Each structure stands twice: as structure tokens, then as C-alpha cells.
């Protein structure tokens, strides 16, 4: 985040503790990472629930966390989008 000019302290950790919370938050498993409310690794048709999330690394390996490059790209994209928003405003 620092490399993208972002503040690491801006990360907010939220515990989703109940099935109702998962439904309300459209939480499909832990960890779910959103930047500006947008999923780093969008899912389709995945049911909400208190479960462990399965990610695929770029080389195809299964992992409990997203590929670091995907995270980095999501940060770049969100920074770019924010920049465009500021320019448009």
C-alpha cells in the first residue's frame, strides 16, 4: 500500500460473526478483501456464509489468500479510479 501512496493504517478489519451478518454483507468466506467496497477477487454464484475462502494463485495453485499480484493490481486500479474521480470533479 505504501508503494501505491496509500496508508496501511487505512485497512479496516471486520469480523463477520453470524450467518445473518454474512448474508447482509454478502460475505462469501474468510478472508474477503474489498477496496472501496469492490471485491479484489469477485465471485459468481457463491453463497454467503461463514466459511473459508478458496483463492487461485496466478500459477493455478490453491491458496487461502489472493495472489499478491492480484492484490497489488487491485490497489493500482483503485488508485487510478480515485485519481480519475478527482480529475473529473
Amino acid at each position, binding site marked *: 500500500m505504501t508503494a501505491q501512496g496509500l496508508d496501511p493504517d487505512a485497512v479496516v478489519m471486520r469480523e463477520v460473526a453470524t450467518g445473518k451478518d454474512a448474508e447482509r454483507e454478502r460475505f462469501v468466506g474468510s478472508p474477503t478483501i474489498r477496496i472501496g467496497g469492490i471485491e479484489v477477487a469477485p465471485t459468481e454464484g457463491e453463497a454467503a456464509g461463514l466459511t473459508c475462502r478458496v483463492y487461485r494463485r496466478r500459477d493455478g495453485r*490453491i491458496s*487461502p489468500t489472493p495472489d499478491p499480484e492480484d492484490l497489488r493490481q487491485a490497489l493500482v486500479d483503485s488508485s487510478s479510479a480515485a485519481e480519475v474521480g478527482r480529475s473529473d470533479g
Partner: protein
Amino acid sequence: MNVGDNAPPFDLPATDGASQGPGATPTAVVFTCNHCPYALAWHDRLLDVARDYSTRGVHVLLVNPNDAGRYPRDSFEAMQERVAADGGWPAPYLRDETQEVARGYGARTTPDVFVLDEAGVLRYRGAPDADYEDPAQNAAWLRGALDAVLEGSEPDPAETEPVGCSVKWSQ
């Protein structure tokens, strides 16, 4: 259960309809499941162990203890579908519906590996190897423990920290 203890016997239903449990041969009991990324990351390595050690008289038992009420992807039907989709596995996939076996073993995570000798004594407990992200690790701790048991020596390490998702206990 600690290394050196007698492991509780069990007999659980497998996806093929048969019931299985540890016998009078060295056995690796692996608590695992369908939905945990750690279990999935290690899965192929565990199946390779089952293939490689079957000719040496080792029995590998994969046991799913998760609460299917809260985690439908771990239901017996989902287990059967997964094995069928793979065209069969080289190790039986057993359902611990009551979670009594997992509790008896003190399983904490999926995966959590327990290696028993031919007398049913626990000789190794922990992770399959040091890194779920590195297939080259090749379940080295599990293989080392099985080699030691087959040679009649003590595994080193005899215990490691299990790594994975918590067992999903019924509430």
C-alpha cells in the same frame, strides 16, 4: 491425544459405502474436508502419499469431520460427488458425522495428520509438511513419519503444529 498414546479405534462410512478404520498396519489418519483452502492445497500431496505407500502396507484414511449443517459443501453427498468427479481416490474418504472421532483424536484443523504404528500407537501428529504453498515439500513430514514407523524408529519431528482451517464443530 499425545504422541505415544493409543489412538481410539473407529469405523466410519466411506464414500463408496464401505466402513473403514485403522487396522493392524501403519496408518495415516488425516482429518480433511471439501471446502478448506489449506486442505485443498495439500490434497494432491496426500493422495500421492496414499499411492506411494500403499505397496508398503500403509493405510491412509481421509476423514471429514466438519458440520455439514453449517457447511453443506462438507456433506456426505458432496464428499461422494467430489470423489466421483475425480474418478476415485487412492485412499478412502470417510465421514465423521458425529465428530466423535475428531474429538477423540483432538483434531484441530483441516488438514490435521496423525500417524499410527501397526499397534495403533500415535507416532506423529501435525502438518503434512512445512508449507502448504510449496508442492515441492511433497508431504515430507508425513513421509518421514511413515518411513520411521516402517523402520521401527521414532519420527523426527514427532510433532508439528497443524496448519489449516479450524474443524467446524457442530453448535
